[in-house]
């Protein structure tokens, strides 16, 4: 029987496919390209910051570098990464469905993503954009003379890809579950994607209209944010962060879903406190919509607005803490193996904990005044987005690679790479916390000489990190051609995806499954307390 990879050959069978698994691979290829593009920008940034003076490139170029790094990494890598690749591939399988509810819309979302990406590439290659990925007005509308409209349209278009993916997931999770797959039997990966999808459909349209208004203000002179017409540049920031703060949860929630799966699988144990982990995803999604004002503490919003956003930002930290404690408790009395996915999960636990706790510094208004817009923030959100989201993505990619490709990756190399990534990451970003508290502002092309030592450390770390990211690229590619053939269930774990062949057949299930209990039930159920 052909599997999804061998069922149909030629370019057209890929570019016109409606199979969620093939579309996931289309996404995998394109986000990997964008990841290395964004990484290249990052590397040039770190190279420039080796010395205090601006000696590698001009300020114009430097400003374009960090803008393109942000735009590419946020909109074209992090947001689609786990949902569009791993979510696309595994949500239907995990709930026992043959495909997502709308296969054609799924394919459309990839084309929309590529179109948005092309706009952004045109903007990047045609001279670049220098507004920062935040597109703050009035700089973006009135002052910058770079390709703001093209890049803005790229972001606008890609937003629809995200909306379509979220819509597809929500409908799929509501309507396509196999018999017996009740809400409280859903794998936690699916729960976290449900929460993510809610943010995608509720938040993305707001940034779409906001970026569109910037383009319209620049191009057609409709002055919605123009202070000369009595418009308010701060309104832009409210609208922008109304999406862009929850967007952080679009990046981290799916990673949390991966970690829930991986920790259970490699502890061979069901998660501790299933419903708390599941509901904390929803809590993060909901409260996450109410905290955007903490990006604007020093912009002149009223003191009382600041206090309200501060307290809400603290509240959103609680469900994340609950998750971390539950994962830790899951390892307790498990049967722990140290395969590469689990190493990435350990890395995630450490880095996300630091990233989350340093978020509290920024929610504390009195302290945020000092660290706002410094390298402290850069370090914090890289601990979340790189230390959290990318670690989660790599954990998931390794965990499911045998299922996706039908081949085993070289385990020794993978463990080595996980270690390199962890060390490189901390060397890159930990010094930036210190730099930030010292007062080095973000987006600085030249900086006072006393900040150099820490910047050199950071650049050295970035080099190590780059090696750590290139390694999986190499051995995954190698494994496709020369890897050992993967069995149906190489890890000896539970889950619907491990009950079908590797790689799966096009229809996923030869016989549609009937579900009788929750995933990751390894030992006979023994009720200890309640919760689960």
């Amino acid at each position, binding site marked *: 029987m052909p599997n999804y990879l061998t069922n149909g050959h030629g370019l057209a069978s890929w570019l016109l496919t409606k199979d969620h698994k093939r579309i996931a691979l289309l996404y995998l290829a394109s986000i990997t390209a964008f990841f290395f593009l964004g990484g290249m920008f990052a590397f040039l940034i770190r190279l420039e910051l080796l010395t205090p003076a601006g000696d590698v490139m001009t300020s114009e170029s430097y400003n374009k570098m960090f803008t393109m790094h942000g735009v590419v990494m946020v909109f074209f890598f992090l947001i689609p990464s786990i949902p569009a690749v791993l979510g696309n591939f595994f949500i239907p399988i995990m709930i026992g469905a043959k495909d997502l509810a709308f296969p054609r819309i799924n394919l459309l979302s990839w084309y929309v993503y590529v179109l948005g990406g092309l706009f952004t590439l045109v903007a990047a290659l045609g001279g670049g954009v220098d507004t920062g990925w935040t597109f703050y007005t009035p700089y973006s509308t009135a002052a910058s003379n770079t390709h703001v409209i093209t890049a803005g349209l790229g972001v606008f278009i890609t937003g629809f890809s995200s909306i379509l993916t979220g819509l597809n997931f929500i409908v799929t999770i509501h309507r396509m579950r196999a018999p017996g797959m009740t809400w409280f039997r859903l794998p936690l990966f699916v729960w976290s994607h449900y929460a993510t999808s809610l943010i995608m459909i509720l*938040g993305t349209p707001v940034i779409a209209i906001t970026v569109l*208004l910037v383009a319209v203000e620049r191009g057609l002179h409709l002055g919605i944010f123009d202070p000369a017409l009595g418009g308010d540049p701060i309104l832009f920031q409210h609208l922008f962060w109304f999406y862009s703060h929850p967007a952080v949860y679009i990046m981290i929630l799916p990673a949390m879903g991966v970690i829930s799966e991986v920790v259970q699988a490699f502890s061979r144990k069901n998660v501790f406190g299933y419903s708390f982990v599941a509901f904390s995803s929803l809590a993060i999604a909901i409260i996450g919509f109410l905290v955007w004002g903490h990006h604007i503490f020093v912009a002149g919003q009223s003191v009382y607005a600041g206090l309200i956003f501060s307290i809400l930002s603290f509240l959103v930290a609680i469900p994340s803490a609950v998750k971390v404690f539950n994962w830790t408790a899951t390892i307790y009395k498990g049967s722990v193996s140290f395969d590469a996915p689990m190493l990435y999960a350990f890395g995630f636990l450490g880095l996300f904990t630091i990233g989350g706790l340093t978020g509290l510094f920024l929610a504390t208004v009195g302290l945020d005044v000092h660290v706002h817009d410094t390298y402290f923030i850069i370090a914090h959100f890289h601990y979340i987005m790189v230390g959290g989201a990318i670690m989660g993505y790599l954990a998931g990619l390794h965990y499911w690679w045998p299922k996706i490709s039908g081949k085993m990756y070289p385990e020794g190399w993978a463990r080595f790479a996980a270690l390199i990534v962890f060390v490189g990451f901390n060397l890159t970003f930990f010094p930036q916390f210190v730099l930030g508290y010292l007062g080095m502002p973000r987006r600085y092309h030249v900086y006072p000489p006393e900040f150099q030592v820490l910047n050199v450390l950071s650049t050295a770390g970035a080099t190590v990190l780059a090696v750590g990211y290139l390694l999986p690229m190499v051995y995954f590619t190698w494994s496709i051609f020369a890897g050992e053939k993967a069995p149906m269930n190489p890890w000896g774990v539970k889950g619907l995806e491990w009950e079908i062949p590797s790689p799966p057949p096009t229809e996923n299930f030869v016989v549609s499954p009937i579900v009788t209990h929750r995933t990751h039930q390894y030992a006979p159920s023994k009720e200890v307390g309640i919760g689960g």
Partner: protein
Amino acid sequence: MAADGHARVAAEGAHGVRHPRLQHHFDDMEQQAEASTLGMWVFLVTEIMFFGGLFMAYLVYRTQMPDAFREASHHLDITLGATNTVILIVSSLTMALAVRSAQTGQPAKTQVGWLVATMVFGAAFLGIKAIEYTEKFRDHIVPGPFFEWHGTYPRGAEMFYSLYFAMTGLHALHMVVGLGIMTVMASLAWRGRFDDTYYTPIEVSGLYWHFVDIVWIFLFPLLYLIGRH
């Protein structure tokens, strides 16, 4: 977990035959229809958020400059606006009738007739909108370097018209998309695609059309009727 070998309930419908419009990955027509309808509702939620950004901007600025908005609003043609409101409400009626004619299995011609009527009203709306826009260009009240305002509040008026063009422009764009969808629906209906067992596409298109109408029902008073009581 538990693929314990039981085959799922057979995918065939009650008559034991797969409906020709049933896509391979759904179990039955009901599941397919439910999925499509839910999909459209979710999409409409995103549309609400999409317009929501503009309504938020409107709310903020109108609160800040109520007098300017009132003055600027008086230059809008209330007759044309009201006519368009009526046209859209009627088009919603013909849309509902189109859906109903498919649901009750009426002949293709009837379905196409109601759809074409809806499109005619939609086109009429856009025509009137075009007339209004032309007038604005003629009177130099399109924001930008050529904006002229002879009232008390030139800055506030320019802001009002920025919002006016952004909001009605975005709405008009949705109307154009709606006309495109209706063209597809009419051609499908003409080929006899819809009957009382399969009418989901026309039904969800109707949802979209009603949504676009409702947006206008909000835009009309907010833009045209400020301070006219």
